[in-house]
């Protein structure tokens, strides 16, 4: 007779449980099965009949089991007692559920256990050191009383917990009990298990644990510390939990993942995963090497799922992720640059910047007539239309879509007071935005335009008002963008240095010094233009303290040709 026996707790998908029980029983491992009382009599009878031909399969008295309650421990206790009494050859008892599936041949598991005859495999973690649990209750599991069912009487459960917290109620731990938690699926030696089951203090301990929250994760896990000689604090059953503390289910497409894990038993398996059951419930030992179980190989997949469910992908807005304001974990998907006023001051600034950064540089994508995508394309990444109406229908999503659709490719675009301004607050609040502003640069274009001065004056007033508003938004206490602001006068004092400082702060721009400068617009006569604006009663204050002609500032001698520094 085998030295390994199984205890199975079943409540659903009994045909699968029967298959697994048969698999073990036919390979000479006794199996004791507990079936939940809530399973219909007829189904239970069918199930027993299905296994009737196996003499090393036993059934225990059925109890009504409910998740998170003492009944589950009771069921495992009675089944384990029966197993130990009826099969004296059993050295290790393996607790499994009806939705467990053996991944490696039983022989391998037996050999593995035979090589470690005195070792108990049970995850047992002290609650003082580790936040083992998912969500809420940790040490309170032991310190409060939980007489109400969480599943059926949620209100009573919550109210009673709350009440105990308010009055400061604390349960006394029994002597010698140091709370430990762990997975409820264990494999214990006869010695340890009998020590727990035949403990003279068993009644007292049971009284305590029967009011603990989810005792099947703490009863054996705690008591084993008092008796076991060697504890391997890990479960031989591969079982993964999601962020709500509910077990992940394995499907047919996990076949290779499960194989690679080298674990002995996995839980839970989707009952209709035919391929898994057909593959693993056979004898052809696909892996007959004595590999150590390595559940870590699977962890990556599930921790990614957890991350996706709880934090999501930054900058993504879609039909199952629509974060409330400030819960986005990044309003946009990647860093991008906004240049305000630069293409007013410099000629072909986009072209220059694009050459310099080696990336796509857009024009004014918020231009009131149409979005100026790079190359004046009618559509852009993701199928975004350049239509201004479409864009202004939801400018935030227009921008987040651009950034999301071009992940891995840094985006830069021009902005200015002539553009549709609705996006301003969003830009300021986005920590991915790098915003560089030359205030008053709009005046350069006005200066160069061939228009009536009265119109110019009027437009100057409008643009300045818009610009002031934008700058105020940027300076708002809540703004999180990386912001640089110069007045036009400040900027042209040291244009190369200032451009360099922007590029230095730009991720991915190579660290070389600037060699080719962008061509600046011809500013001779600009000071006089500003003066006449002032004389007309319109003070272009955002331009800054622009030097009078013939004074401090002299535009570069040869403005029409790129010049070199260094």
């Amino acid at each position, binding site marked *: 007779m085998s030295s390994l026996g199984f205890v199975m707790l079943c409540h659903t998908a009994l045909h699968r449980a029967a298959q697994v029980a048969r698999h073990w029983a036919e390979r000479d491992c006794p199996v004791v099965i507990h079936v939940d009382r809530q399973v219909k009599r007829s189904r239970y009878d069918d199930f027993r009949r299905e296994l009737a031909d196996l003499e090393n399969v036993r059934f225990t008295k059925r109890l009504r089991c409910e998740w998170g309650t003492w009944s589950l421990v009771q069921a495992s206790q009675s089944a384990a007692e029966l197993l130990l009494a009826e099969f004296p050859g059993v050295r290790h008892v393996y607790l499994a559920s009806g939705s467990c599936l053996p991944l490696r041949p039983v022989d391998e598991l037996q050999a593995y256990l035979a090589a470690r005859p005195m070792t108990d495999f049970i995850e047992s973690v002290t609650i003082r050191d580790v936040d083992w649990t998912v969500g809420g209750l940790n040490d309170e599991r032991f310190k409060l009383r939980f007489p109400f069912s969480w599943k059926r009487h949620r209100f009573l459960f919550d109210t009673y917990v709350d009440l105990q917290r308010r009055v400061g109620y604390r349960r006394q731990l029994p002597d010698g009990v140091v709370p430990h938690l762990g997975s409820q699926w264990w494999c214990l030696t006869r010695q340890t298990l009998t020590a727990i089951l035949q403990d003279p203090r068993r009644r007292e301990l049971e009284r305590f644990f029967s009011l603990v929250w989810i005792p099947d994760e703490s009863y054996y896990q705690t008591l084993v510390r008092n008796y076991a000689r060697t504890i391997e604090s890990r479960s031989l059953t591969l079982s993964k939990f*999601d*962020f*709500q503390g*509910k077990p*992940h*289910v394995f*499907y*047919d*497409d996990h076949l290779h993942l499960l194989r690679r894990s080298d674990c002995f038993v996995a839980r839970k398996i*989707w009952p*209709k995963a035919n391929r898994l059951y057909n593959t693993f419930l056979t004898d052809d030992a696909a892996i007959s090497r004595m590999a150590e179980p390595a559940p870590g190989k699977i962890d990556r*997949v*599930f921790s*990614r*799922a*957890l991350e*996706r*469910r*709880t*934090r*999501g*992908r930054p900058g*993504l*807005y*879609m*039909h*199952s*992720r*629509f*974060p*409330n304001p400030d*819960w*986005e*974990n990044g309003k946009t998907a990647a860093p991008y640059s906004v240049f305000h006023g630069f293409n007013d001051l410099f000629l072909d600034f986009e072209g220059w910047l694009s050459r310099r950064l080696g990336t796509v540089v857009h024009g004014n994508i918020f231009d009131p007539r149409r979005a100026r995508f790079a190359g004046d394309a*009618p*559509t*852009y*990444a*993701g*199928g*975004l*239309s350049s*239509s201004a*109406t*479409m864009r202004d*229908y*939801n400018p935030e*999503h*227009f921008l987040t*879509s651009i950034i*999301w*659709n071009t992940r891995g490719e840094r985006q830069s675009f021009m902005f200015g007071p002539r553009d549709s301004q609705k996006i301003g607050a969003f830009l300021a609040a986005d920590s991915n935005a790098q915003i560089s502003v030359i205030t008053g640069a709009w005046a350069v274009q006005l200066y160069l335009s061939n228009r009536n001065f009265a119109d110019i004056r009027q437009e100057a007033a409008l643009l300045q008002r818009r610009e002031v508003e934008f700058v105020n938004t940027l300076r708002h206490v809540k703004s999180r963008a990386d912001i640089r602001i110069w007045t036009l006068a400040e900027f042209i004092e040291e244009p190369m240095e200032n451009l360099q400082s922007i590029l230095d702060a730009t991720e991915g721009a190579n660290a070389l010094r600037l060699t080719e400068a962008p061509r600046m617009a011809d500013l001779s006569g600009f000071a006089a233009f500003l003066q006449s604006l002032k004389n007309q009663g319109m003070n272009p204050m955002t331009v800054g303290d622009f030097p009078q002609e013939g004074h401090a500032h002299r535009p570069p001698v040869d403005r029409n040709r790129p010049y070199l520094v260094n």
Partner: protein
Amino acid sequence: MKAFKRYALRLQRKKYLVRAWRKSRALRVVADRTNAIGPQDVLCFCTLRNEKVRLKYFLSYYRDRGISHFLFVDNDSNDGSREYLAEQDDCSVWTTPESYKRARFGMDWINRLLRLYGHRHWCLVVDPDEFLVYPFSDTRPIPALTDWLDASSIKSFGAMILDMYPKGAITAQPYEEGSDPFQIACWFDPGNYVIQRNWQYGNLWIQGGPRARTFFTDAPAKAPALNKIPLVKWHKSYAYASSTHMLLPRGLNLVYDEWGGEKTSGVLLHAKFLDTFSTKAREELERRQHYAASAEYKAYHAGLSENPDFWTKWSERYINWRQLEILGLMSKGNWA
């Protein structure tokens, strides 16, 4: 939400249920095989008119993915759709000559059938040109998804409509009965969608895609809604409020995460833009039975005769659900 607003929504839901009962009296049974529905079955509900050419593929697509029973409302087809469906062993069929528009675009009929046959079942409500893609849809059937949703205490599953279109004129490649429409209409717009919240019902309102950028550039607010909640663990007190875009009670509309995470969701591939479309558009335009005085069809008709090509160089070619996941059009959430 204020108590009286909640109460108003409750009344509205009751109104829909009464209305569904009233409108459903015009339904005539063609084939009733609902006795064959088992307690665990996932059901599919569908309204149609003259869609015979699509049905073969539609049925095989959803049968392969584990739908056990189909319940159809036929709105006076004359192309043999009704007769074809009545022959199928897993289909129950009702028919009515009444106005589609006055049955709230067929929703009243469907609400009634849902109440009668959908109670405590997972119910998929789709049009004959909508094909549900969900995480792992290539390896796991729909019951795997619904079992998982049950275990997670989730009652409704959201999916966005993704308009699929061919490259070139839509009439260039004729669709053959029984073939995969996405062999022809295999392109889609990956990232030009805009989302707003509907605070009254709690759902998201999504617009965009090729229809919006081609036909609605001047009036984007009128572009069709793309948000859908097609898969629901039905209870007889539920009601679809407007198409399958939103439901009452409003809690069912919360198929998105508000705190930065991603919930599990799918995509409804929309095989509308095949060569069958122009005929359909013309017919629907004459019947005036569609939403907002068939504004959509008017726009299509005008748009399609001028420029029948949706394709741009930014269009993506459909490969599988993983591609849609990476593009951010759907999410695995924590289903792994």
